[in-house]
């Protein structure tokens, strides 16, 4: 993933984990620029921003300071900084979901308050700035098993992230007449310690410029036995990696780029070009030019053209739908000689043409199913498990049946004290199957379960299936609960009746 789970420290608080940074021209209005940063990979529907972190997107003016093997980009102060901070949860009435508010500090010190997940966002009175923060579908596409360089399905399919977006009037904020090339980074920094000296800044938790500086370059899994430098990298000051450490990082990036170049068995980068590429990469910021078009294909074009010794043609940057991994791998492995394509071509959902440009979060119908083959005839197994209020599951401590037949309710108390309520929707004694709905106890809506016993040779086969819409806790919490219930229940039948093939 772009910068997901990229160092030991960020595993502690996933809300501090920056995943991606974006910079592109607004699809709605070419006079406006959009910057966005995402945190907290694959969060559930209730994920919340940390109230102890300052999340910033920082922009500096940049210029091309060298071409070809002398390729170099230089950045200059002052910085244009957008900082997002978030409050603790606000509890309203018991039947209402808690809300979170946040504040974006804009360049010049102006602040803008907003409500998290309000997709209209908030705007300054003059309309120059507009911000959004909330849960969105993760636009990142990683369709590779990176260690083995093998095509795969999108590993982030159906994932969500917490997203911060700021859109602004390009001319008024960036003053492109003074130079239209910019470099951006995003960072997460803890709030200062109370009573701390002003000069004693808290150490940075995470930062990101271009995608995959950490997970693919610094921690290239192809470099066996190499130390993990990601944590050290994350603690450096963006735009100002100290000379003493620069050599350490530069050596690693060179080694890593050389390794990537040979992944297809062909050397496409000369030593000089590779060293120049490493130098460019070490200045890790997302380059974008507001005077030129940003497209889904323009990511890294500024760097590539400069390394090739010619003027760049596009706005570079990174759009929501840019397939940055394939663009990056194509550059590193073949130097654009041949396109390198992963096992999928698009993320779960494409970006949108309207603010906030990142798609709604994912809530797809999910299925969990498990089957076991038993050494007992179907009737014998059905006699045990075919009663809707039957007591046979080892994770169920108590069961009460209210009513009879279709429409009856079973109230299950699990051995760890949780209560689950389910309603019988249909039963077919001849087919040895019943269907039920979950009423309470499993954090899912539209939950339908089916239990069926079928003949299987001299024995039988039990299939247990559930379909549901993750509701509030996200797919995996629910999946885990259901999977554990199914697996444990079916395994107990194996002990009771014996398993067959």
């Amino acid at each position, binding site marked *: 993933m772009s910068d997901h*789970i990229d160092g030991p*420290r960020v*595993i*502690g*608080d*996933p*809300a*501090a984990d920056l995943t991606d940074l974006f910079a592109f021209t607004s699809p709605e209005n070419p006079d406006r620029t959009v910057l966005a940063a995402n945190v*907290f*990979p*694959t*969060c*559930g529907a*209730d*994920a*919340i*921003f*940390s*109230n*102890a*972190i300052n999340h910033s997107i920082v922009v500096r003016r940049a210029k091309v300071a060298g071409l070809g093997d002398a390729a170099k980009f230089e950045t200059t102060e002052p910085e244009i900084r957008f900082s997002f901070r978030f409050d*603790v*949860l606000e509890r309203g009435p018991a039947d209402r979901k808690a809300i979170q508010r946040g504040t974006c500090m804009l360049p010049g010190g102006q602040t803008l308050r907003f409500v998290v997940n309000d997709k209209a966002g908030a705007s300054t009175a003059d309309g120059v700035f507009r911000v959004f923060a909330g849960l969105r579908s993760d636009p990142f596409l990683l369709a590779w*098993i990176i*260690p083995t360089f093998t095509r*795969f399905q999108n*590993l982030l*399919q159906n*994932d969500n992230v917490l997203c911060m977006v700021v859109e602004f009037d390009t001319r008024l904020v960036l003053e492109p007449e003074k130079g239209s090339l910019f470099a951006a980074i995003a960072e997460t920094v*803890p*709030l*200062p*310690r*109370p*009573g701390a000296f002003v000069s004693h800044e*808290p*150490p940075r*938790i995470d930062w990101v410029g271009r995608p995959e500086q950490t997970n693919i370059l610094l921690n290239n*899994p192809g470099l066996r036995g190499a130390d993990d430098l990601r944590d050290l990298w994350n603690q450096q000051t963006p735009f100002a990696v100290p000379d003493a450490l620069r050599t350490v990082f530069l050596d690693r990036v060179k080694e890593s780029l050389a390794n990537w170049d040979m992944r297809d068995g062909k050397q496409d980068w000369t030593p000089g070009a590779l060293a120049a590429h490493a130098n460019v990469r070490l200045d890790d910021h997302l380059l974008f030019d507001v005077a030129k078009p940003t497209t889904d294909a323009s990511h890294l074009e500024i760097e590539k053209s400069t390394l090739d010794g010619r003027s760049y043609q596009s706005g570079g940057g990174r759009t929501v739908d840019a397939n940055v991994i394939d663009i990056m791998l194509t550059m590193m492995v073949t130097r654009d000689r041949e396109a390198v394509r992963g096992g999928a071509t698009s993320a779960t959902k494409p970006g949108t043409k309207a603010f906030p440009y990142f798609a709604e979060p994912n809530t797809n119908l999910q299925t969990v199913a498990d089957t076991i083959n038993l050494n007992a005839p179907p009737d014998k197994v059905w006699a045990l498990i075919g009663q809707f209020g039957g007591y046979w599951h080892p*994770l169920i*401590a108590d069961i009460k049946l209210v009513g009879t037949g279709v429409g009856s309710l079973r109230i299950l108390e*699990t*051995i*760890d*004290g*949780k209560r689950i309520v389910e309603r019988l929707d249909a039963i077919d004694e001849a087919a040895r199957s019943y269907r039920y709905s979950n009423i309470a106890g499993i954090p899912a809506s539209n939950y339908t379960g089916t239990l069926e016993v079928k003949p299987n040779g001299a024995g039988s086969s039990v299939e247990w299936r559930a379909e549901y819409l993750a509701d509030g*806790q*996200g*797919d*995996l*919490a629910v*999946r*885990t609960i259901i*999977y*554990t219930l199914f*697996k*444990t229940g079916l395994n107990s039948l194996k002990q009771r009746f014996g398993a067959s093939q």
Partner: protein
Amino acid sequence: MTASSELEHECFPTTDGEIAAVNLESARRRSWSVFFQDPCRDGAADIVLEHERLTAQFVGDVSALDRVETLAMHLAQTDAGSARTALVQAQVASMVHRFAEARQHLAESARLGAPSAEVDRLTLNIDQADWSNLDSVLDQRREIAEKSGRLDDLVALGALLADLRDCTEADSLYRQALENYQDVSPFPVAWVCFQLGVLWGELVPEPQRLLAERWYRRAVDCLPSYTKARVHLAEIYALSGRTSDAEAVLSSAIGSGDPEVRWRLADVMASLGRSADAEAHLQAARRGFDALLGRHLPAFADHAAEFYSGSGKDRRRALELARVNVANRPTLRALEQAHEIAVSAGDAAAASELLADARKRWSSIAAFQRSPLANLRAAMQGAAA
């Protein structure tokens, strides 16, 4: 200086505990998602384990142990015979205190080529848990803590020293851990505060309840979902007659499923004269402990022994469980607990046997001299003379 201001000056502000608990749940789901997509993916199972461990430790969700067993089972089916699977199986076995089994899986993982650093790290954890190779464990812990200075390494050393009743150094290490902490997750901070509460409330020769209460309260303030800290805080409230405070602290933790919450609530209800409520909580606690013992006997033997020797009113069972715990990890604390239960059960032979066992194993270490068992030894010797 209050504990609160002490803490504020000892670490950076951390993420609000309610937010962190919600986000831990999200992170836990994330790790399962990655695992289900590709169980063999590097690190996928380890991250699930880490999140489930945090969930068990800081949310008191005992079903986390069932989920990690499911994880190990699933991995054994999808990636059987790999070093990684054996390592995960070892971690799961260790998490549910099946230390002998964990060692077998560890040996297997080493044979299959698991990274020696990981094997060594887990071996050290297991050795510390069951007090094997104690001198070597202490040396290694000191070396690691000095080298890394990381919070988890400092706390691991502090916890060992606290068990060895070197409370001054343990306190100093815990405070150093807080001071060095530079992240925003409240879990490590709450953990250190809890450890400091246990140190001052239970392990020092003369417990200092007020100090312990402050640390437990800080742990709960930092992380309201921290069930274990709530239980310990409620115990102190109850001991000092603040039963309504104890009830409030425990009531919001009922949903965790931890039977200890129901047990302590039963005690509080009983002291308030609400016998029907007390009985209902007691029944729920008994059912909860029995269910847990059925699935994870070694992990809950000591807590259940405590329950049955007290409000659970079954001292025979308490002694059996305490002996199970001693057999699994014969630490000084386990032996002290078993001995105390044997005495209260009126089983002089068992008490004598346990005392002899403790003396045989631990009389050579300094901690034994600070143990209540040391005085008994002196008393016995005096009686014999």
